[in-house]
């Protein structure tokens, strides 16, 4: 069998390529890329199975997610893996990016590997954004309302982009269908294409290793296969056990079905967008666009062009004062804003409810319970009494 395959496939060549030695100085942080790829595969697998019982329409989406969680065997576990896997993915990709910055691995000749990696980060955030509309609960609806409105503030094309994302002027059936298609078809194709290019470049230029490696050290370390692969697989197993425990013991939230008139819902995004949620509070009036467009865009451009801006010799981060300062400010800023966003207090309004004798009682309220909500729309019967509706069609008997 082995001979049959060897005669038809370049297996020996592949194996000898995989057995090539890595740089001598390498550490556990160099497994983060493999862990990110494992998570991408896990998300693809769990997502493919979740799609078997999901329906992307406002009438059915929420019920479908409830059905998956409560009735489908292993549904709660699979949904849990997918949900917590998404959070793990954001963390691992962020740490992987920090590792590359730490050792200056983006420097020549690996600039394009970095650029493709930044696009992959955007795709991961895109997965998060399009994914959490799918349960069609309150969080899904309002986070998407805010997210799309943020896009609409971009100059010139903002309104156009928002309408394309929504599939119209407001969030509804077309939006859900579009986000489902983006989440399950467009972004996975893009992600696997980019991962393919990223991996090709990583293998082509080889691992960068730490900055301790001399030119001789670059080819005298352990082989990628089986040594490094074994370490990566152990890391994947540990990560899977953590995710499985989370899926089993930490319930995945599913709020009430989306209601565009819900008065007492305080919209909050997923934790990985909390920094942006908090940032938006600080830019007022005409400066709104700084928070919604200018800062996020500049941040992304800085990230994208980092290898072309930082062109000095490769050194570890603490020997590159400018890079160290910028990275520290960004990391502290993102973590700090995320914590502030998480602690952001819910809105309490003071409402006065009318009483029968016309006096007024003031009380701090949970709006849903005490605020008067009126629905005086005319019923169909009332409407019919206002407009005479005639039906003079002949009955079957009359026709005969």
């Amino acid at each position, binding site marked *: 069998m082995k001979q049959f395959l060897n005669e038809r496939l370049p297996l020996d060549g592949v194996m000898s390529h995989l057995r090539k030695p890595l740089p001598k100085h390498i550490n556990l942080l160099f497994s983060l890329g493999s862990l990110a790829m494992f998570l991408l595969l896990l998300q693809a697998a769990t997502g493919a199975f979740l799609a078997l019982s999901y329906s992307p*329409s*406002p009438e059915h989406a929420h019920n479908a997610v409830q059905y998956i969680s409560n009735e489908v065997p292993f549904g709660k576990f699979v949904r849990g893996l997918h949900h917590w896997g998404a959070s793990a993915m954001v963390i691992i990709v962020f740490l992987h990016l920090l590792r590359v910055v730490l050792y200056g691995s983006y420097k020549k000749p690996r600039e394009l590997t970095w650029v493709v990696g930044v696009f992959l980060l955007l795709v991961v955030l895109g997965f998060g954004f399009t994914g959490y509309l799918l349960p069609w609960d309150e969080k899904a609806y*309002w986070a998407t*309302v*805010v997210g*799309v*409105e*943020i896009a609409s503030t971009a100059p010139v094309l903002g309104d*156009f982009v928002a*309408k*394309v994302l*929504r*599939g*119209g*002027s*407001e969030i*509804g*059936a*077309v939006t859900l*269908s579009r986000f489902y298609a983006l989440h399950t078809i467009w972004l996975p194709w893009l992600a696997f294409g980019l991962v393919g290019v990223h991996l090709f470049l990583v293998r082509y230029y080889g691992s960068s290793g730490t900055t301790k490696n001399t030119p001789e050290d670059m080819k005298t370390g352990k082989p990628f296969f089986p040594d490094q692969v074994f370490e990566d697989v152990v890391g994947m197993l540990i990560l899977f056990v953590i995710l499985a425990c989370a899926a089993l013991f930490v319930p995945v939230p599913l709020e009430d079905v989306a*209601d*565009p*008139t*819900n*008065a007492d*819902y*305080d*919209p909050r995004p997923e934790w990985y967008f909390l920094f942006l*949620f908090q940032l*938006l*509070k600080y*830019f*007022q*009036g*005409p400066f*709104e666009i700084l*928070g*919604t467009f200018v800062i996020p865009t500049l941040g992304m451009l800085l990230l994208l062009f980092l290898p072309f801006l930082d062109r000095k010799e490769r050194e570890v981060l603490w020997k590159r004062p400018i890079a160290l300062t910028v990275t520290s400010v960004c990391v502290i800023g993102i973590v700090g804003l995320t914590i502030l966003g998480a602690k952001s207090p*819910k*809105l309490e*309004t*003071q*409402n*006065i409810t009318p009483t029968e004798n016309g006096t007024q009682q*003031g009380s701090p309220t949970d*709006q849903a319970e005490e*605020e*008067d*909500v*009126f*629905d*005086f*729309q*005319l019923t169909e019967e009332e409407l019919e009494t*206002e407009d005479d509706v005639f039906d003079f069609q002949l009955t079957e008997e009359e026709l005969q």
Partner: protein
Amino acid sequence: MSNESRRSFLQIASACLGGLLSLAAGIPLIGFAISPAWKKGESQWVDLGLVDRLKDSRFKKVNFTFTAKDGWVKATKKRSVYVTDLGNGEWSVFSRTCSHLGCLVRWDENKESFLCPCHGAVFDKDGAVVEGPPPEPLQKLEVKVEAGVLYVKEA
């Protein structure tokens, strides 16, 4: 024709044909994806109820529904507005959508303000921005009264 110029011709011709193919397939596909951006929303008058039931000088939160086309679905949409009777047949109806990023504002009777639960926006009773990030006031909706019924123009 030399082999070299023949090959250059084939190279250019392949690129041109490839480009033509991409355009022929790409234009309708892109048009298909972005067409909703060209579609203009239709506004319609929606009844909020009988004027007699709505008369109140304080803001009342009024929920209403209307039917509108959402892609292939004729959907019942839910909306909510704040209504106040200004007297002399004048009405003030505010959309509850925050002009910042679309969250729903709430009326606080004590502060006499509309408050947004998302990014801390505050609007006064005329809908003007008092505090927070919104660049514009709350949207005041067009209203009309016909046969004792208050109608609002829903965009």
